[in-house]
């Protein structure tokens, strides 16, 4: 399936990750995982809790080295974190509290000298703030806005950096159902508009079906890829929803896999 891609944006080659705990025993979290991610795709990684989804994302992010195997971005080896792989975390605290909403988006641009001048950077900030519908909140501090808004800002902050890939670690998991649905819709639209590549970790089947152009299921630890599919659910009417053609079958397929893996 994924192996036919000629130029994957992310190429994971037989990656293994082991941790040694305090007693000296070794825990294998990821066991020989290979995966190619197509440019412009929206990859959702599903799996039972504790299966190493976040570990995989951290390896792609370059925050930790793999124990075995290699990871590549555009054919260059990943050795450290970089702005080409921007992370969006689950927790609402990911914004810097000492910077305003606008300041949070501007800061990475400033550090990486994206944008010629301060004025240009302000324009970039404004553009991405309006993309997530928060143009009026430029001068608010993070503690003055809601959790859903914080996640929107985090997404805008990532997008503004023009990364090759956005790595999302269950960014909507702490939100209430309604906010979560509207953010899913927004993210889907943004993905369609910007055609940015997204790797999205979730434990929520509905979320994976609604968002993913491709869905991968990880087995329980030591994890391997036990299912890799192109999302079969019809998306010709826009974002997929529980009534979309093929939704139920896909849900059952994924659910069975996850139940199997949770045993």
């Amino acid at each position, binding site marked *: 399936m994924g192996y036919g891609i000629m130029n994957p944006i992310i190429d994971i080659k037989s990656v293994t990750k082991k941790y040694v705990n305090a007693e000296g025993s070794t825990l294998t979290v990821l066991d020989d995982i290979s995966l190619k991610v197509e440019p412009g795709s929206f990859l959702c990684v599903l799996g039972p809790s504790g299966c190493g989804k976040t570990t995989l994302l951290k390896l792609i992010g370059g925050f930790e080295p793999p124990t075995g195997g290699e990871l590549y971005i555009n054919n260059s080896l990943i050795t*450290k974190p970089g702005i080409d792989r921007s992370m969006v975390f689950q927790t609402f605290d990911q914004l810097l509290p*000492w910077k305003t909403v606008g300041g949070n988006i501007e800061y990475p641009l400033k550090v990486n000298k994206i944008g010629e001048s301060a004025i240009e950077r302000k324009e970039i900030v404004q553009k991405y703030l309006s993309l997530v519908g928060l143009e009026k909140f430029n001068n608010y501090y993070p503690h003055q806005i809601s959790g859903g808004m914080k996640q929107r800002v985090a997404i805008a902050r990532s997008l503004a950096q023009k990364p090759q890939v956005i790595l999302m670690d269950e960014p909507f998991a702490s939100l209430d159902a309604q906010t979560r649905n509207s953010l899913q819709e927004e993210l889907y639209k943004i993905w369609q508009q910007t055609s940015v590549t997204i790797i999205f970790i979730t434990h929520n089947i509905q979320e994976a079906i609604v968002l993913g152009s491709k869905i991968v299921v990880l087995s329980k630890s030591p994890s391997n890829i036990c299912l890799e599919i192109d999302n079969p659910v019809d998306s010709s009417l826009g974002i997929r929803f529980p009534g979309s053609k093929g939704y139920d079958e896909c849900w059952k397929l994924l659910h069975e896999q996850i139940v199997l893996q949770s045993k």
Partner: protein
Amino acid sequence: MESIGNRFYRSLGKFFMNRLIFFIGFLVLWEAVYYLKFFPAMLFPSVQTIFISLFDNMKNGELLIRTYNSLVLIFYGMLIGVVIAAALTALAMSNNICKSFVTSLIAVAHPLPGIALLPLTILWFGLGKGSIIFIIVHSVLWPILLNTMSGFSSVTQLYKDFGMNIGLTKIGLIRGIYIPATLPNIYAGLKIGWARAWRALIGAEMIFGATGNSSGLGWFIYEKRAFLDVPAVFASLVVIVVIGITVEDLLFNQLEKNTTRKWGMES
């Protein structure tokens, strides 16, 4: 809608109002104790006598000069203390060996009272400003360093990950993430340092005695006690309290209001 500026001044007004009520209450209580003659008037003067003494000693310039001399010493002591604390924090951040070295240094030096070092200091630096400044530096350095380092080591992994993600260098990480994230701790350290500096200064000055014209408040109190000029002793305590409160309310409070409190980072 009420503007943020208005709300700010109103809360400031309320704050000073509460302070005022406290002071009036305190003065009334003081006068009550004085008039009930619990203590001999010579040892427990009335508010009026204290303020007259304060006024006189201000007018003849003595108290002002002494206060100025003390503040200069405190200023240098704090400045040197902060600079050394920053340098040692930077050293501790550079690697784990240095970090354990600095931690041990704090463990050894922090519990040592400055006054206990005074005899040694006199032998090393002589009877001069150098010795007093040394004692002040010793008193302010460790609490500031301790607070800053504990703040640095408790910065959330998330901010560090974010910093690395956007490609911050080590120095950029310290400037852009560690220092702002640690500001509440740094302020706490500075406040403790400031209070300790006064204690050290007054203590050292009392033991040192006069160093020419440049003696400070500590010696002033000591002198006045020797002449049994109790109102003047209290007058100098008033000066110390007023300076303490002014720095606390105007400097630290405003600093926090414009930074950590505005950012919702108050612990």
